[in-house]
């Protein structure tokens, strides 16, 4: 198999144990976390959002390819639109927040992140959860009348710490093969 033909499964279903029911305290705290996270990003509180990222972060948005339906579960490649760890995410945040030349987001986009369809599973590690959520993102910039949109499923590993939840891993499964927005100067 070649590097390209090789695909990865990013849903990590084998790591999911008992599903945490909707409405339980754990489920609600994770839902609250995802809403807070979206709010921070939408309001460009990027440094505060960065504090939610674990030191051992793995943040990836793999490239998607269209395949025959028999390979529908093998549409994600090894290369990504994001392929980040904690350091590289901090560098991105620093560029966007400490300089006055980050033109891809100056003027800033107006972004809304709609998070839904949240599923939570326990894992083999106490206080760590596998979380799947749907993301619908609208991005408007300058005087554009229309929106650049994006939909995705995110598979997260969330870790409860004394400071609340941290994101240890986020795999962003995009629905688009050819992205309709000109860059990812925003976080997903």
């Amino acid at each position, binding site marked *: 198999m070649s590097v390209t*033909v090789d695909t990865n499964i990013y849903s990590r279903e084998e790591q999911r144990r008992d599903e945490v029911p909707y409405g339980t305290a754990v489920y609600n705290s994770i839902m609250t976390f995802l809403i807070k996270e979206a709010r921070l990003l939408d309001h460009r509180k990027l440094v505060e959002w960065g504090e939610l990222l674990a030191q051992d972060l793995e943040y990836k948005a793999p490239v998607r390819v269209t395949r025959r339906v028999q390979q529908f579960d093998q549409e994600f490649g090894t*290369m990504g639109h994001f*392929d980040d760890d904690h350091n590289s995410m901090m560098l991105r945040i620093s560029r966007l927040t400490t300089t006055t030349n980050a*033109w*891809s987001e100056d003027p800033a986009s107006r972004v809304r992140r709609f998070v839904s369809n949240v599923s939570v599973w326990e894992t083999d590690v106490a206080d760590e959860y596998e979380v799947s959520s749907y993301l619908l993102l609208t991005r408007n910039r300058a005087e554009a009348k229309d929106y650049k949109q994006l939909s995705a499923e995110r598979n997260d590993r969330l870790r409860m710490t004394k400071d609340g939840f941290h994101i240890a891993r986020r795999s962003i499964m995009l629905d688009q093969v050819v992205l309709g927005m000109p*860059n990812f100067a925003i976080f997903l």
Partner: protein
Amino acid sequence: MRLNPRKEFMAEAVSQFIDIENREVSVAALHDHDLYELELERIFAKAWLMIGHDTEIPNVGDYVVRLMGEDQVIVARAADGQVHVSLNVCPHRAMHVCLADSGNARVHKCIYHGWAFRPDGSFIGAPIEKEQMHGIIKSKAQLGLKKARVQLYGGLVFATWDHEGPSLEDWLGDMKFYYDMLFDRTEKGLEVLGPPQRISIDANWKTAGEQSACDGFHTLTLHGSVIDIGAMGGEHDTEHESAPAMYGINLSGNGHSLRCIAADTSWALAHGKGDLTPEERLEAFPPPGITPGLLPELKKKMSAEQLHVLAKAPPVVGGMFPNMNILFIYSPLRDGTLGSALVLHSIMPKGPHQFEWTTYYFAEKGTPEDVKVMMRAAATSGTGTSGIIEQDDSDTWPHMTESARGVIGRTETLKYQAILGENRPADWPNKAKVYEGFGKDDAQWEWWLAYHKLMTAEA
């Protein structure tokens, strides 16, 4: 400006977009629909286009679907072991034969009426053979998928619809001597690090095309943020002198271009000042993409003249006319060491106001696996969709294109009047046009001259 569709006026009409004497290009060239149609015919159906790499399709039957201009093609490895490029259009009723981006198939069968083709494009037959549903007028040999001419170079798949035009070698001319230092420098060669990123950008393809021809100047301003956070080296208070190596050697030939950054500048940015001879530095600080383990191969494969260039000022960024952008750059890796990112973009037009930007990441096959993974991450954080460098570029090109929509805006011109002039250093090979010093507009203007030449060539 609308082009006069009458052929005898066409060359003249194209020339009206480009003021050769004053080195200016009409902004209308970023908008004009007729000019765009002519570009598809005269550039994208004529030029050698890079559409992938043979490591994407290692096995017989492997294929990827790519663009050549607005035409989809199937890039496949056939039973003969060779890479074939065929138009993804069924000769029967124009249905796309291949509907996936990649996969493996010994037979490509059109889902509409079942006409079937081999990976080399040849026609196998239509269902119900005895009824001869492919017709009684044309032979099977005449009913294959349209074939492009293919040439591999360093594993890169180049294709053109111009079956009588220059060979790839002639097309690259003197610049091949320099491209060899990037694409054809080790025994095993390059490999892709995964399927390419694809983005649709609301801009005319030439905004990214002309920039690829060594626009070093925009780095200081558009990429100021990257300099600010120290990701491009240089002292903060002297950034405009030292970072990111604004002085260097630009090369240009046939519209192709490369920008060479003095190795001592890169060395100083990474390690501080040091008194090394060029040969010692090549040893201690190989060019981007060459790990220490690959140095012996590099030395064996390159000529003495090429090694001299690599030691003095290796090519690191640039383009290949008309639509390829190259970044073979040093980049910090996540383990804290200085490594590199090897990146190629192709810019495929999708109408006058849109193009598809495809980004490939590479490593030499002989690179340790863990380093490949770090190189891929480094390339992703610097370039392409989310790259902290290039996300500013993809923001700029749409603005330029939008400017061209205004009837007054399109009376403005793109100006290439900062001129360094050819000034080859005595110890530099006498190959291609050489511009040493602060990078100016010379190579980009050569890109437009190549564009003009192809657009006004006799069909």
